[in-house]
Protein backbone atom coordinates (compact mmCIF):
# COMPACT_ATOMS: atom_id res chain seq x y z
CA UNK A 1 0.00 0.00 0.00
CA UNK A 2 1.24 3.50 -0.77
CA UNK A 3 -0.21 6.76 0.50
CA UNK A 4 -0.75 9.58 -2.01
CA UNK A 5 1.25 12.57 -0.83
CA UNK A 6 -1.29 14.92 -2.35
CA UNK A 7 -4.61 13.66 -0.96
CA UNK A 8 -3.54 10.96 1.53
CA UNK A 9 -5.61 8.28 -0.21
CA UNK A 10 -4.47 4.67 0.11
CA UNK A 11 -3.36 3.21 -3.19
CA UNK A 12 -2.20 -0.23 -4.30
CA UNK A 13 1.54 -0.74 -4.75
CA UNK A 14 2.48 -0.11 -8.36
CA UNK A 15 -0.09 2.65 -8.86
CA UNK A 16 1.31 5.39 -11.11
CA UNK A 17 -1.36 8.08 -10.68
CA UNK A 18 -3.57 8.36 -7.63
CA UNK A 19 -7.06 7.11 -8.48
CA UNK A 20 -8.63 9.67 -6.16
CA UNK A 21 -6.91 12.95 -7.03
CA UNK A 22 -4.82 12.08 -10.11
CA UNK A 23 -1.46 13.14 -8.64
CA UNK A 24 1.66 11.30 -9.72
CA UNK A 25 2.90 8.74 -7.22
CA UNK A 26 6.10 8.10 -9.13
CA UNK A 27 8.30 10.82 -7.72
CA UNK A 28 7.56 9.53 -4.23
CA UNK A 29 9.67 6.70 -2.85
CA UNK A 30 7.72 3.45 -3.08
CA UNK A 31 8.05 2.61 0.60
CA UNK A 32 5.58 3.70 3.21
CA UNK A 33 6.59 7.13 4.39
CA UNK A 34 5.11 10.11 6.09
CA UNK A 35 3.69 12.72 3.79
CA UNK A 36 6.31 15.25 4.86
CA UNK A 37 9.15 13.04 3.71
CA UNK A 38 7.26 12.18 0.53
CA UNK A 39 7.07 15.84 -0.30
CA UNK A 40 10.74 16.22 0.31
CA UNK A 41 11.52 13.22 -1.85
CA UNK A 42 9.40 14.78 -4.57
CA UNK A 43 11.31 18.02 -4.31
CA UNK A 44 14.64 16.24 -4.54
CA UNK A 45 13.82 14.41 -7.69
CA UNK A 46 12.51 17.56 -9.37
CA UNK A 47 13.96 18.61 -12.72
CA UNK A 48 17.68 19.15 -12.70
CA UNK A 49 17.64 22.85 -12.24
CA UNK A 50 20.79 24.43 -10.93
CA UNK A 51 19.94 25.82 -7.55
CA UNK A 52 22.52 28.16 -6.21
CA UNK A 53 20.71 27.85 -2.91
CA UNK A 54 20.81 31.54 -2.37
CA UNK A 55 19.66 32.13 1.14
CA UNK A 56 17.67 35.27 1.35
CA UNK A 57 17.20 37.13 4.57
CA UNK A 58 13.74 36.57 5.94
CA UNK A 59 11.54 39.50 4.94
CA UNK A 60 11.39 41.97 7.79
CA UNK A 61 7.83 43.06 8.49
CA UNK A 62 7.87 46.60 7.18
CA UNK A 63 5.68 49.25 8.76
CA UNK A 64 2.19 49.03 7.33
CA UNK A 65 2.63 51.69 4.73
CA UNK A 66 2.09 49.54 1.72
CA UNK A 67 1.43 45.87 0.97
CA UNK A 68 0.97 43.75 -2.08
CA UNK A 69 -0.80 40.40 -2.25
CA UNK A 70 -0.72 37.30 -4.38
CA UNK A 71 -3.90 35.25 -4.54
CA UNK A 72 -3.47 31.62 -5.54
CA UNK A 73 -6.56 30.82 -7.58
CA UNK A 74 -6.64 27.07 -7.08
CA UNK A 75 -6.45 27.13 -3.31
CA UNK A 76 -7.86 30.60 -2.76
CA UNK A 77 -4.87 31.34 -0.51
CA UNK A 78 -4.14 35.04 -0.17
CA UNK A 79 -0.49 35.77 0.47
CA UNK A 80 -0.03 39.28 1.82
CA UNK A 81 3.50 40.52 1.34
CA UNK A 82 5.39 43.42 2.78
CA UNK A 83 7.00 45.68 0.22
CA UNK A 84 10.68 44.93 -0.01
CA UNK A 85 13.04 45.62 -2.90
CA UNK A 86 12.79 42.02 -4.01
CA UNK A 87 10.45 39.06 -3.41
CA UNK A 88 11.45 35.60 -4.54
CA UNK A 89 8.69 33.21 -5.67
CA UNK A 90 9.28 29.48 -5.79
CA UNK A 91 9.19 26.29 -3.79
CA UNK A 92 11.00 25.69 -0.53
CA UNK A 93 13.67 23.00 -0.30
CA UNK A 94 14.34 22.14 3.32
CA UNK A 95 17.10 19.75 2.38
CA UNK A 96 19.10 22.61 0.92
CA UNK A 97 17.85 25.12 3.42
CA UNK A 98 16.24 27.11 0.66
CA UNK A 99 13.20 29.21 1.53
CA UNK A 100 11.74 31.64 -1.02
CA UNK A 101 9.65 34.60 0.20
CA UNK A 102 6.62 33.09 -1.49
CA UNK A 103 6.57 29.30 -1.10
CA UNK A 104 4.10 27.71 -3.49
CA UNK A 105 4.79 24.11 -2.48
CA UNK A 106 1.66 24.17 -0.30
CA UNK A 107 -0.48 25.13 -3.28
CA UNK A 108 0.46 22.12 -5.41
CA UNK A 109 3.45 24.00 -6.78
CA UNK A 110 5.45 20.88 -7.48
CA UNK A 111 2.72 19.25 -9.53
CA UNK A 112 2.04 22.52 -11.31
CA UNK A 113 5.66 22.76 -12.44
CA UNK A 114 6.80 25.65 -10.24
CA UNK A 115 10.60 25.78 -10.03
CA UNK A 116 12.37 26.30 -6.74
CA UNK A 117 13.58 29.69 -7.93
CA UNK A 118 10.81 30.53 -10.33
CA UNK A 119 10.39 34.29 -10.52
CA UNK A 120 10.78 37.45 -8.49
CA UNK A 121 8.88 40.65 -7.94
CA UNK A 122 11.02 43.75 -7.84
CA UNK A 123 9.79 46.96 -6.27
CA UNK A 124 11.36 50.08 -7.70
CA UNK A 125 10.19 53.66 -7.09
CA UNK A 126 6.70 52.58 -6.18
CA UNK A 127 6.17 50.39 -9.25
CA UNK A 128 6.46 46.62 -9.48
CA UNK A 129 8.29 44.45 -11.94
CA UNK A 130 8.01 40.70 -12.56
CA UNK A 131 11.05 38.74 -13.65
CA UNK A 132 11.29 35.07 -14.62
CA UNK A 133 14.42 33.50 -13.18
CA UNK A 134 14.96 30.96 -15.93
CA UNK A 135 12.24 28.64 -14.61
CA UNK A 136 11.73 25.24 -16.26
CA UNK A 137 8.09 25.75 -17.18
CA UNK A 138 7.97 29.48 -17.71
CA UNK A 139 6.21 32.52 -16.29
CA UNK A 140 3.21 34.07 -18.01
CA UNK A 141 1.82 37.55 -17.44
CA UNK A 142 -1.80 37.87 -18.52
CA UNK A 143 -1.32 34.70 -20.58
CA UNK A 144 1.73 35.98 -22.43
CA UNK A 145 4.94 34.17 -21.73
CA UNK A 146 7.63 36.56 -20.50
CA UNK A 147 11.26 36.15 -21.47
CA UNK A 148 13.58 34.97 -18.68
CA UNK A 149 15.70 37.62 -16.97
CA UNK A 150 13.69 40.45 -18.55
CA UNK A 151 11.63 42.24 -15.90
CA UNK A 152 8.20 43.46 -17.04
CA UNK A 153 5.89 45.87 -15.27
CA UNK A 154 3.07 44.58 -13.06
CA UNK A 155 -0.31 46.22 -12.55
CA UNK A 156 -3.05 45.73 -10.02
CA UNK A 157 -5.17 42.70 -10.93
CA UNK A 158 -2.64 41.15 -13.31
CA UNK A 159 -2.69 37.36 -13.76
CA UNK A 160 0.63 35.64 -13.22
CA UNK A 161 1.03 32.03 -14.22
CA UNK A 162 3.98 30.09 -12.83
CA UNK A 163 4.25 26.84 -14.75
CA UNK A 164 0.61 25.77 -14.51
CA UNK A 165 -0.19 27.62 -11.29
CA UNK A 166 -2.26 30.74 -11.61
CA UNK A 167 -2.01 33.65 -9.14
CA UNK A 168 -3.40 37.16 -9.18
CA UNK A 169 -1.35 40.19 -8.24
CA UNK A 170 -3.01 42.87 -6.12
CA UNK A 171 -1.80 46.21 -4.78
CA UNK A 172 -3.35 47.57 -1.63
CA UNK A 173 -2.31 51.19 -1.65
Amino acid at each position, binding site marked *: *MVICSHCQAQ*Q*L*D*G*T*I*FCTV*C*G*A*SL*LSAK*PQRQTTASLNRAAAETAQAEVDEATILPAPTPAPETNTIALIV*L*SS*GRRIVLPVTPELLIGRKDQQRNFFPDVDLSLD*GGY*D*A*GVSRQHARIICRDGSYLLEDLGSS*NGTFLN*RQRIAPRRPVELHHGD*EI*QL*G*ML*LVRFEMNG
Partner: protein
Amino acid sequence: MSKVDLRITPSRSVLPASQEPQLLYALIELSAQSGATKMPRLPLNLCLVIDRSSSMRGERLQQVKQAAMQILDLLGDHESFALVTFNDRAEVVVPAQLARARAEIKRQISAIEAAGGTEMATGLALGVQELQRAMMPRAIHRLLLLTDGRTYGDEGRCVEIARRAQARGIGITALGIGSEWNEDLLETIAARENSRTHYITSAAEITKIFTAEVERMHNIFAQDVQLRVTLPPQGLLRSLDRVRPYIVPLPTIEEAEFVWTAALGDWPESDAQALLMEIVVPPLPVGRHTMLRLQLRYRVPGSEGTTANHEQNLVVGVRNPDEVASEVDPTVKHWLERLVAYRLQASAWQAAEEGKLEEATRRLQMAGTRLFEAGEIELARTVQEEATRLLRSGQASAEGRKRIKYGTRGLIGREEQL
Protein backbone atom coordinates in the same frame (compact mmCIF):
# COMPACT_ATOMS: atom_id res chain seq x y z
CA MET B 1 -5.35 -13.66 -44.75
CA SER B 2 -5.70 -11.81 -41.50
CA LYS B 3 -2.60 -9.97 -40.47
CA VAL B 4 -2.93 -8.48 -37.05
CA ASP B 5 -0.16 -7.44 -34.70
CA LEU B 6 -0.95 -7.77 -31.03
CA ARG B 7 1.59 -6.28 -28.65
CA ILE B 8 1.39 -6.15 -24.85
CA THR B 9 3.56 -3.71 -22.90
CA PRO B 10 3.37 -3.87 -19.09
CA SER B 11 4.04 -0.83 -16.92
CA ARG B 12 6.80 -2.84 -15.22
CA SER B 13 8.46 -5.91 -16.68
CA VAL B 14 9.59 -7.18 -13.28
CA LEU B 15 7.43 -7.01 -10.16
CA PRO B 16 8.60 -7.10 -6.55
CA ALA B 17 7.42 -10.12 -4.57
CA SER B 18 4.86 -8.87 -2.07
CA GLN B 19 2.33 -10.09 0.48
CA GLU B 20 -0.09 -7.51 -0.85
CA PRO B 21 -1.91 -7.25 -4.16
CA GLN B 22 -0.32 -4.75 -6.53
CA LEU B 23 -1.35 -2.85 -9.61
CA LEU B 24 0.03 -3.56 -13.06
CA TYR B 25 -0.93 -1.57 -16.14
CA ALA B 26 -0.80 -3.14 -19.58
CA LEU B 27 -0.92 -1.33 -22.90
CA ILE B 28 -2.28 -3.47 -25.71
CA GLU B 29 -1.51 -2.25 -29.20
CA LEU B 30 -3.49 -3.71 -32.06
CA SER B 31 -2.50 -2.91 -35.58
CA ALA B 32 -3.47 -4.26 -38.94
CA GLN B 33 -0.63 -4.87 -41.32
CA SER B 34 -1.27 -2.88 -44.46
CA GLY B 35 -3.02 -4.88 -47.08
CA ALA B 36 -5.30 -6.56 -44.58
CA THR B 37 -8.22 -5.09 -46.48
CA LYS B 38 -7.19 -6.22 -49.93
CA MET B 39 -10.29 -8.32 -49.97
CA PRO B 40 -13.85 -7.74 -51.09
CA ARG B 41 -15.31 -5.11 -48.81
CA LEU B 42 -18.85 -4.98 -47.55
CA PRO B 43 -21.14 -2.39 -49.13
CA LEU B 44 -22.06 0.63 -47.06
CA ASN B 45 -25.65 1.41 -46.10
CA LEU B 46 -25.46 5.06 -45.11
CA CYS B 47 -27.99 7.63 -43.95
CA LEU B 48 -27.12 11.24 -43.17
CA VAL B 49 -29.35 12.92 -40.58
CA ILE B 50 -28.82 16.66 -40.83
CA ASP B 51 -29.92 19.47 -38.54
CA ARG B 52 -31.36 22.27 -40.72
CA SER B 53 -32.50 24.59 -37.95
CA SER B 54 -32.05 28.30 -38.67
CA SER B 55 -28.71 28.43 -36.84
CA MET B 56 -27.29 26.19 -39.59
CA ARG B 57 -27.97 28.92 -42.18
CA GLY B 58 -25.01 30.11 -44.22
CA GLU B 59 -21.62 28.47 -44.34
CA ARG B 60 -22.49 25.51 -42.13
CA LEU B 61 -25.36 24.25 -44.26
CA GLN B 62 -23.44 25.08 -47.42
CA GLN B 63 -20.54 22.93 -46.22
CA VAL B 64 -22.85 20.12 -45.17
CA LYS B 65 -24.46 20.01 -48.60
CA GLN B 66 -21.07 19.96 -50.27
CA ALA B 67 -19.90 17.21 -47.91
CA ALA B 68 -23.04 15.15 -48.64
CA MET B 69 -22.38 15.40 -52.36
CA GLN B 70 -18.76 14.38 -51.93
CA ILE B 71 -19.79 11.38 -49.86
CA LEU B 72 -22.19 10.40 -52.62
CA ASP B 73 -19.24 10.41 -55.04
CA LEU B 74 -17.25 8.16 -52.70
CA LEU B 75 -19.97 5.51 -52.70
CA GLY B 76 -20.00 2.70 -55.19
CA ASP B 77 -23.02 1.81 -57.37
CA HIS B 78 -23.95 -1.05 -55.07
CA GLU B 79 -24.01 1.07 -51.92
CA SER B 80 -27.05 2.72 -50.38
CA PHE B 81 -27.50 6.40 -49.59
CA ALA B 82 -30.28 8.28 -47.78
CA LEU B 83 -30.61 11.76 -46.33
CA VAL B 84 -33.00 13.01 -43.66
CA THR B 85 -33.23 16.58 -42.38
CA PHE B 86 -34.83 17.85 -39.21
CA ASN B 87 -35.85 21.13 -37.64
CA ASP B 88 -39.18 21.32 -35.80
CA ARG B 89 -40.16 18.32 -37.85
CA ALA B 90 -38.28 15.71 -39.86
CA GLU B 91 -38.32 14.99 -43.55
CA VAL B 92 -36.83 12.35 -45.85
CA VAL B 93 -35.01 14.39 -48.52
CA VAL B 94 -33.34 11.44 -50.26
CA PRO B 95 -35.11 8.11 -49.66
CA ALA B 96 -32.81 5.09 -49.25
CA GLN B 97 -31.56 4.09 -52.71
CA LEU B 98 -28.49 2.73 -54.43
CA ALA B 99 -26.04 5.54 -55.15
CA ARG B 100 -26.78 5.68 -58.88
CA ALA B 101 -29.03 8.57 -59.88
CA ARG B 102 -26.34 10.90 -58.61
CA ALA B 103 -27.40 14.07 -60.48
CA GLU B 104 -30.96 13.77 -59.20
CA ILE B 105 -29.80 13.08 -55.63
CA LYS B 106 -27.48 16.10 -55.73
CA ARG B 107 -30.34 18.30 -56.91
CA GLN B 108 -32.40 17.16 -53.93
CA ILE B 109 -29.49 17.89 -51.59
CA SER B 110 -28.91 21.37 -52.98
CA ALA B 111 -32.55 22.32 -52.37
CA ILE B 112 -32.19 21.97 -48.57
CA GLU B 113 -32.79 25.23 -46.72
CA ALA B 114 -32.30 26.23 -43.11
CA ALA B 115 -35.26 27.26 -40.95
CA GLY B 116 -36.96 26.56 -37.66
CA GLY B 117 -35.88 24.87 -34.42
CA THR B 118 -34.16 21.63 -33.43
CA GLU B 119 -36.03 18.43 -32.72
CA MET B 120 -33.68 15.56 -33.11
CA ALA B 121 -35.64 12.45 -32.13
CA THR B 122 -37.97 12.38 -35.13
CA GLY B 123 -34.99 12.95 -37.43
CA LEU B 124 -33.16 10.02 -35.88
CA ALA B 125 -36.24 7.80 -36.11
CA LEU B 126 -36.70 8.58 -39.81
CA GLY B 127 -32.99 7.99 -40.46
CA VAL B 128 -33.13 4.56 -38.84
CA GLN B 129 -36.23 3.75 -40.86
CA GLU B 130 -34.47 4.60 -44.13
CA LEU B 131 -31.50 2.42 -43.20
CA GLN B 132 -33.80 -0.51 -42.56
CA ARG B 133 -35.69 0.16 -45.76
CA ALA B 134 -32.51 -0.39 -47.77
CA MET B 135 -32.81 -4.12 -47.03
CA MET B 136 -29.14 -4.95 -47.26
CA PRO B 137 -28.58 -8.00 -45.11
CA ARG B 138 -24.81 -7.99 -45.49
CA ALA B 139 -23.58 -4.43 -45.23
CA ILE B 140 -22.03 -1.88 -42.91
CA HIS B 141 -24.99 0.13 -41.60
CA ARG B 142 -24.21 3.65 -40.46
CA LEU B 143 -26.11 6.75 -39.49
CA LEU B 144 -24.22 10.03 -39.61
CA LEU B 145 -25.86 12.67 -37.41
CA LEU B 146 -24.87 16.34 -37.54
CA THR B 147 -26.29 19.00 -35.24
CA ASP B 148 -25.38 22.47 -34.02
CA GLY B 149 -28.06 22.97 -31.41
CA ARG B 150 -29.81 21.61 -28.39
CA THR B 151 -32.87 19.49 -28.79
CA TYR B 152 -35.42 20.22 -26.09
CA GLY B 153 -37.56 17.66 -24.34
CA ASP B 154 -36.88 14.67 -26.56
CA GLU B 155 -33.40 13.71 -25.34
CA GLY B 156 -34.71 10.51 -23.76
CA ARG B 157 -36.39 9.50 -27.02
CA CYS B 158 -33.17 10.20 -28.94
CA VAL B 159 -31.24 7.79 -26.72
CA GLU B 160 -33.97 5.13 -26.99
CA ILE B 161 -34.02 5.31 -30.77
CA ALA B 162 -30.23 5.16 -30.89
CA ARG B 163 -30.12 2.10 -28.63
CA ARG B 164 -32.71 0.23 -30.68
CA ALA B 165 -30.78 0.97 -33.86
CA GLN B 166 -27.46 -0.04 -32.30
CA ALA B 167 -28.96 -3.30 -31.09
CA ARG B 168 -29.82 -4.03 -34.73
CA GLY B 169 -26.27 -3.43 -35.86
CA ILE B 170 -26.54 0.19 -36.96
CA GLY B 171 -23.56 2.29 -35.88
CA ILE B 172 -24.03 5.99 -35.18
CA THR B 173 -21.51 8.75 -35.70
CA ALA B 174 -22.75 11.86 -33.89
CA LEU B 175 -21.11 15.12 -34.94
CA GLY B 176 -21.54 18.41 -33.11
CA ILE B 177 -20.61 21.75 -34.63
CA GLY B 178 -20.29 25.13 -32.90
CA SER B 179 -20.66 25.57 -29.14
CA GLU B 180 -24.41 25.21 -28.50
CA TRP B 181 -25.11 21.51 -28.89
CA ASN B 182 -25.52 19.13 -25.99
CA GLU B 183 -22.34 17.09 -25.71
CA ASP B 184 -23.76 14.91 -22.92
CA LEU B 185 -26.54 13.77 -25.24
CA LEU B 186 -24.24 13.06 -28.20
CA GLU B 187 -21.82 11.19 -25.98
CA THR B 188 -24.64 9.07 -24.58
CA ILE B 189 -25.95 8.34 -28.07
CA ALA B 190 -22.49 7.26 -29.22
CA ALA B 191 -21.61 5.19 -26.16
CA ARG B 192 -21.97 1.85 -27.96
CA GLU B 193 -19.79 -0.16 -30.26
CA ASN B 194 -19.43 1.09 -33.81
CA SER B 195 -20.56 4.50 -32.66
CA ARG B 196 -18.54 7.59 -31.98
CA THR B 197 -18.88 11.29 -31.48
CA HIS B 198 -16.81 14.09 -32.86
CA TYR B 199 -16.54 17.82 -32.32
CA ILE B 200 -16.31 19.96 -35.43
CA THR B 201 -14.85 23.34 -34.51
CA SER B 202 -15.37 25.10 -37.84
CA ALA B 203 -17.58 24.69 -40.89
CA ALA B 204 -14.49 24.25 -43.04
CA GLU B 205 -13.82 20.88 -41.36
CA ILE B 206 -17.22 19.37 -42.17
CA THR B 207 -16.27 17.86 -45.53
CA LYS B 208 -12.99 16.48 -44.23
CA ILE B 209 -14.60 14.76 -41.24
CA PHE B 210 -17.56 13.41 -43.23
CA THR B 211 -15.37 11.91 -45.92
CA ALA B 212 -12.83 10.56 -43.42
CA GLU B 213 -15.70 8.79 -41.64
CA VAL B 214 -16.90 7.19 -44.89
CA GLU B 215 -13.35 6.12 -45.74
CA ARG B 216 -12.98 4.48 -42.33
CA MET B 217 -16.17 2.49 -42.93
CA HIS B 218 -14.87 1.48 -46.32
CA ASN B 219 -11.77 -0.17 -44.89
CA ILE B 220 -13.31 -2.25 -42.14
CA PHE B 221 -11.46 -5.57 -42.24
CA ALA B 222 -12.68 -7.13 -39.00
CA GLN B 223 -16.21 -7.17 -37.61
CA ASP B 224 -17.54 -7.86 -34.13
CA VAL B 225 -14.06 -7.87 -32.64
CA GLN B 226 -14.16 -9.62 -29.25
CA LEU B 227 -11.42 -9.41 -26.68
CA ARG B 228 -11.06 -12.08 -24.02
CA VAL B 229 -8.80 -11.46 -21.04
CA THR B 230 -7.70 -14.28 -18.72
CA LEU B 231 -5.91 -13.40 -15.50
CA PRO B 232 -4.14 -15.60 -12.94
CA PRO B 233 -6.32 -16.90 -10.06
CA GLN B 234 -7.33 -14.08 -7.67
CA GLY B 235 -6.38 -11.50 -10.32
CA LEU B 236 -8.81 -8.68 -11.07
CA LEU B 237 -9.36 -6.59 -14.18
CA ARG B 238 -9.95 -3.18 -12.62
CA SER B 239 -10.55 -1.21 -15.80
CA LEU B 240 -10.28 -1.39 -19.56
CA ASP B 241 -10.20 1.68 -21.78
CA ARG B 242 -9.51 2.30 -25.40
CA VAL B 243 -6.85 5.03 -25.62
CA ARG B 244 -6.26 5.06 -29.38
CA PRO B 245 -7.52 6.30 -31.78
CA TYR B 246 -9.46 8.10 -29.03
CA ILE B 247 -10.24 7.51 -25.39
CA VAL B 248 -13.38 5.63 -24.49
CA PRO B 249 -14.06 3.33 -21.52
CA LEU B 250 -14.87 -0.23 -22.64
CA PRO B 251 -17.48 -2.14 -20.67
CA THR B 252 -16.34 -5.63 -19.70
CA ILE B 253 -18.29 -8.71 -18.69
CA GLU B 254 -16.87 -11.22 -16.24
CA GLU B 255 -17.68 -14.28 -18.27
CA ALA B 256 -16.13 -16.88 -15.97
CA GLU B 257 -13.87 -16.79 -12.97
CA PHE B 258 -10.87 -14.59 -13.86
CA VAL B 259 -12.05 -14.27 -17.46
CA TRP B 260 -13.39 -11.01 -18.87
CA THR B 261 -14.70 -10.17 -22.33
CA ALA B 262 -15.19 -6.87 -24.13
CA ALA B 263 -16.76 -6.05 -27.48
CA LEU B 264 -14.66 -3.76 -29.64
CA GLY B 265 -16.99 -3.51 -32.63
CA ASP B 266 -15.84 -3.15 -36.23
CA TRP B 267 -12.25 -2.31 -36.97
CA PRO B 268 -11.16 -0.09 -39.87
CA GLU B 269 -7.68 -0.97 -41.03
CA SER B 270 -6.57 2.66 -40.80
CA ASP B 271 -7.23 2.76 -37.04
CA ALA B 272 -4.23 1.77 -34.98
CA GLN B 273 -5.89 0.78 -31.75
CA ALA B 274 -4.50 0.77 -28.25
CA LEU B 275 -6.17 -0.36 -25.05
CA LEU B 276 -5.00 0.25 -21.53
CA MET B 277 -5.93 -2.12 -18.72
CA GLU B 278 -5.43 -1.96 -14.98
CA ILE B 279 -4.79 -5.37 -13.46
CA VAL B 280 -4.77 -6.11 -9.75
CA VAL B 281 -2.09 -8.79 -9.40
CA PRO B 282 -2.46 -11.18 -6.45
CA PRO B 283 0.54 -11.90 -4.16
CA LEU B 284 2.84 -14.23 -6.12
CA PRO B 285 6.05 -16.08 -5.24
CA VAL B 286 9.39 -15.29 -6.88
CA GLY B 287 9.50 -16.75 -10.39
CA ARG B 288 8.00 -16.19 -13.83
CA HIS B 289 4.25 -15.89 -14.11
CA THR B 290 1.72 -15.55 -16.91
CA MET B 291 -0.05 -12.35 -15.89
CA LEU B 292 -2.36 -12.05 -18.80
CA ARG B 293 -3.69 -14.12 -21.67
CA LEU B 294 -5.34 -12.19 -24.49
CA GLN B 295 -7.53 -13.67 -27.18
CA LEU B 296 -8.82 -11.61 -30.08
CA ARG B 297 -11.58 -13.00 -32.24
CA TYR B 298 -13.39 -11.39 -35.15
CA ARG B 299 -15.48 -12.06 -38.22
CA VAL B 300 -13.94 -11.53 -41.61
CA PRO B 301 -16.35 -9.38 -43.62
CA GLY B 302 -17.72 -10.72 -46.86
CA SER B 303 -16.85 -14.32 -46.13
CA GLU B 304 -19.49 -16.69 -44.85
CA GLY B 305 -18.92 -17.36 -41.18
CA THR B 306 -15.12 -17.13 -41.30
CA THR B 307 -13.59 -16.04 -38.03
CA ALA B 308 -10.00 -15.27 -37.19
CA ASN B 309 -8.23 -15.67 -33.86
CA HIS B 310 -5.13 -14.22 -32.34
CA GLU B 311 -3.60 -15.00 -29.01
CA GLN B 312 -0.85 -13.45 -26.94
CA ASN B 313 0.41 -13.98 -23.40
CA LEU B 314 2.22 -11.66 -21.06
CA VAL B 315 4.83 -13.27 -18.84
CA VAL B 316 6.28 -11.16 -16.04
CA GLY B 317 9.06 -12.02 -13.60
CA VAL B 318 8.54 -11.65 -9.85
CA ARG B 319 11.73 -11.03 -7.85
CA ASN B 320 12.91 -9.94 -4.45
CA PRO B 321 11.95 -6.29 -3.91
CA ASP B 322 15.57 -5.12 -3.58
CA GLU B 323 16.35 -6.46 -7.07
CA VAL B 324 13.51 -4.58 -8.69
CA ALA B 325 13.94 -1.11 -10.18
CA SER B 326 11.02 1.25 -9.82
CA GLU B 327 11.03 2.54 -13.42
CA VAL B 328 7.85 2.36 -15.42
CA ASP B 329 7.54 2.04 -19.17
CA PRO B 330 7.34 5.57 -20.65
CA THR B 331 4.79 4.67 -23.35
CA VAL B 332 2.44 3.09 -20.82
CA LYS B 333 2.89 6.13 -18.59
CA HIS B 334 2.14 8.53 -21.45
CA TRP B 335 -1.19 6.91 -22.33
CA LEU B 336 -2.10 6.46 -18.70
CA GLU B 337 -1.40 10.14 -18.08
CA ARG B 338 -3.81 11.08 -20.87
CA LEU B 339 -6.41 8.63 -19.62
CA VAL B 340 -6.14 10.06 -16.10
CA ALA B 341 -6.59 13.58 -17.52
CA TYR B 342 -9.73 12.42 -19.33
CA ARG B 343 -11.11 10.84 -16.16
CA LEU B 344 -10.28 13.90 -14.06
CA GLN B 345 -12.05 16.31 -16.38
CA ALA B 346 -15.10 14.01 -16.53
CA SER B 347 -15.34 13.94 -12.75
CA ALA B 348 -14.73 17.71 -12.65
CA TRP B 349 -17.86 18.40 -14.71
CA GLN B 350 -19.77 16.05 -12.46
CA ALA B 351 -18.56 17.92 -9.38
CA ALA B 352 -19.41 21.27 -11.01
CA GLU B 353 -22.92 20.04 -11.70
CA GLU B 354 -23.30 19.14 -8.04
CA GLY B 355 -22.23 22.66 -7.12
CA LYS B 356 -18.84 21.57 -5.77
CA LEU B 357 -16.87 24.27 -7.54
CA GLU B 358 -13.67 24.02 -5.58
CA GLU B 359 -13.54 20.27 -6.08
CA ALA B 360 -14.24 20.74 -9.78
CA THR B 361 -11.49 23.35 -10.06
CA ARG B 362 -8.99 21.14 -8.27
CA ARG B 363 -9.78 18.24 -10.58
CA LEU B 364 -9.49 20.39 -13.68
CA GLN B 365 -6.16 21.74 -12.49
CA MET B 366 -4.84 18.25 -11.90
CA ALA B 367 -6.10 17.31 -15.38
CA GLY B 368 -4.11 20.30 -16.64
CA THR B 369 -1.00 19.07 -14.86
CA ARG B 370 -1.35 15.60 -16.36
CA LEU B 371 -1.85 17.02 -19.86
CA PHE B 372 1.07 19.37 -19.40
CA GLU B 373 3.32 16.45 -18.53
CA ALA B 374 1.95 14.38 -21.38
CA GLY B 375 3.09 17.18 -23.71
CA GLU B 376 -0.40 18.49 -24.50
CA ILE B 377 0.59 22.05 -23.68
CA GLU B 378 -2.13 23.91 -25.53
CA LEU B 379 -4.91 21.75 -24.16
CA ALA B 380 -3.39 22.07 -20.67
CA ARG B 381 -3.70 25.85 -20.97
CA THR B 382 -7.32 25.62 -22.09
CA VAL B 383 -8.02 23.45 -19.04
CA GLN B 384 -6.23 25.95 -16.81
CA GLU B 385 -8.26 28.85 -18.22
CA GLU B 386 -11.55 27.04 -17.72
CA ALA B 387 -10.56 26.09 -14.18
CA THR B 388 -9.98 29.76 -13.41
CA ARG B 389 -13.22 30.77 -15.08
CA LEU B 390 -15.12 28.10 -13.18
CA LEU B 391 -13.75 29.28 -9.85
CA ARG B 392 -14.46 32.94 -10.60
CA SER B 393 -17.82 32.84 -12.28
CA GLY B 394 -19.14 29.45 -11.19
CA GLN B 395 -19.38 28.34 -14.81
CA ALA B 396 -17.13 27.11 -17.55
CA SER B 397 -17.64 28.38 -21.09
CA ALA B 398 -19.63 26.11 -23.40
CA GLU B 399 -16.83 26.10 -25.93
CA GLY B 400 -14.07 25.49 -23.39
CA ARG B 401 -16.02 22.59 -21.92
CA LYS B 402 -16.36 20.97 -25.34
CA ARG B 403 -12.74 21.58 -26.21
CA ILE B 404 -11.67 19.91 -22.98
CA LYS B 405 -14.11 17.00 -23.19
CA TYR B 406 -13.24 16.21 -26.77
CA GLY B 407 -9.62 17.30 -26.57
CA THR B 408 -8.76 15.00 -23.65
CA ARG B 409 -10.26 12.09 -25.55
CA GLY B 410 -8.09 12.93 -28.52
CA LEU B 411 -11.04 13.78 -30.71
CA ILE B 412 -10.09 17.20 -31.99
CA GLY B 413 -7.05 18.39 -33.82
CA ARG B 414 -5.90 14.93 -34.83
CA GLU B 415 -7.71 14.33 -38.08
CA GLU B 416 -4.45 13.33 -39.69
CA GLN B 417 -4.43 10.30 -37.40
CA LEU B 418 -7.81 9.04 -38.50
